[in-house]
């Protein structure tokens, strides 16, 4: 397969700080991993947690406060808020995760094209990234929604294009380093074909830093996806997406605070767990690079 990156060794003496002395991940990371596993489980098998439907209405049960029958209360149509949150997990997670994946894919093509094409191509592609980075992320996403139209798919593509320019710069920078490395030169010297070098040497060794960055950005992508749904451009009612639920709940803040409280809490918890894990991955990668 590919040439392996720097060999793993123990932590260098003297550099050890709190988090680095132990091999075992800290409690916060374990907690985050446990929380995220639960959320993932809810996304994959919502029936495990919620036994009622997310979309069945029951006017007699409308606007009930949290209690024994309905843990998180009911909304204005008598739908169980807990069931809606559980069933909505997959939409909220999927938009963020798919957008990050698509962003990585776009960025790999973009960054590699810039690094491996001539000077003119590099300048043009990176200038384009600069221009897109100059626009606020949400504005960029809104521009994409104009083309794709609103909905889950549109919001996902929009969030992906919001993250891609930043990712592309990382890919390009890393690819430029890899291109000049000994093993690529060796491959060139051995007469390996160019597409093969790109595929087997440049690409795998470029991906590492990008994947770390993508993990750290995943939380923000979930958040932006929910924001688009909140603004009415992502998941459409009656889809129980968390951001869209907040829009519905905002109309009833006076009478029923629980409709807007709980989806948001879950959103914060999920983003928090992802961020903690992402930063842990980042620290480990930095530590590995430093050792």
């Amino acid at each position, binding site marked *: 397969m590919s040439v392996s990156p720097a060999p793993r060794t123990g932590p260098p003496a003297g550099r050890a700080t709190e988090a680095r002395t132990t091999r075992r991940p800290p409690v916060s990371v374990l907690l985050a991993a446990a929380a995220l596993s639960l959320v993932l489980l809810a996304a994959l098998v919502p029936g495990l947690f919620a036994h009622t439907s997310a979309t069945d209405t029951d006017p007699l049960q409308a606007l009930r406060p949290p209690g024994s029958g309905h843990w998180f209360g009911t909304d204005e149509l008598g739908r169980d808020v807990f069931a809606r949150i559980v069933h909505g997990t997959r939409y909220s997670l999927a938009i963020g995760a798919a957008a990050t994946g698509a962003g990585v894919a776009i960025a790999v093509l973009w960054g590699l094209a810039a690094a491996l094409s001539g000077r003119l191509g590099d300048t043009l592609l990176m200038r384009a990234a600069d221009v897109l980075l*100059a626009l*606020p992320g949400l*504005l960029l996403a809104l521009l994409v929604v*104009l083309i794709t139209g609103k909905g889950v798919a549109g919001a996902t593509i929009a969030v992906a294009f919001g993250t891609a320019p930043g990712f592309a710069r990382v890919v390009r920078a890393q690819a430029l380093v890899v291109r000049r490395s000994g093993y690529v030169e060796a491959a060139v010297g051995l007469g390996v074909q160019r597409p093969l070098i790109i595929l087997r040497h440049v690409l795998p060794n470029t991906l590492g830093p990008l994947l770390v960055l993508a993990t750290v950005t995943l939380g923000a992508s979930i958040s932006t996806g929910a924001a688009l749904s909140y603004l009415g451009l992502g998941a459409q009612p009656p889809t129980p997406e968390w*951001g869209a639920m907040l829009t519905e709940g905002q109309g009833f803040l006076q009478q029923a605070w629980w409709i807007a409280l709980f989806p*948001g809490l879950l959103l914060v918890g999920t983003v928090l767990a992802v961020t903690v894990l992402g930063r842990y991955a980042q620290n480990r990668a930095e530590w590995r690079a430093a050792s």
Partner: protein
Amino acid sequence: MRPVVRQVAVRLGGALLVVWGAASCAFLVLQLVPGDPVRAVVGANALVDAGQREEIRHHYGLDRPLPVQYVTYLGHLLTGDLGDSYQLQQPVSGVLAQQLRPTAELALYATLLAVLLAVVVTVATSGRARWPRRLSAVVELVVVSTPSFWLGIMLLTLFSFRLGWLPVSDSGDVRSLVLPVITLALPIAAVLTQVMREGLLDALRSPFVLTARARGLTEPAVRSRHALRHAALPALTLAGWFTGTLLSGAVVVENVFARSGIGRVTLQAVTSRDLPLVQGVVALSAVVFVAVGTVVELLCLAVDPRLRGATGVKAA
């Protein structure tokens, strides 16, 4: 003198390039928007015959070839003419000028609050004791992970609906600014604190702090006058991100609190496919981005004397 002139010319050229690029990007994107622009002008349900349709297309210049449209658009942009809004039937520049005030007000107060919070928290938690730093790090992490629309909704629920201390929507007085400003400022403050703390801790370990202490300066003086300056630099370089976050945040916050402003207009323009208005917003935000970048570069010079020398030699 020459290198300075050259430097200014390069900066100005780069700035123009970004604005031109953003404007072209907006033009390109809007060509890709599916559907007939005439429907966006008259509404989906209106009945228009072919003649009227042609008239509307002619009025907005949509009947001319694309390259001509592009060149006209750029030419108008140079003179500050952003065309007429499809929906509001008035010049885009007028609409934006009118909406700029409330957003600028919101952004200004939010920036001030965020910087104030970040500086106070950074300095207060930079002492020997570890627990204030740890506690603050946890709070920052939670705040950074909280989407601003939910934060705003929760603040509304608590302070406006439950406690009744603050107005629910924009009533024109200063009190209606409190919650939107807090909502916009908190996430920014959290990120700023994270960056500044790292800078401050680095600075406190450096030789010049030892010198300052040896000169008998008090601990607060060492921190605020010497180390904090150092910590401010990495925070200042975040300014591009900062402007973007303010503008993205304004879109969300203005919609949560039903305030008028650029953010609200932006969302309206996107949902109603008011293409000239969208182009105007893109051009405006590119100009703001470039302007802020320039101001920040000057600020960096003011904060760090080492950057002023043209020789590029950096004293330790």
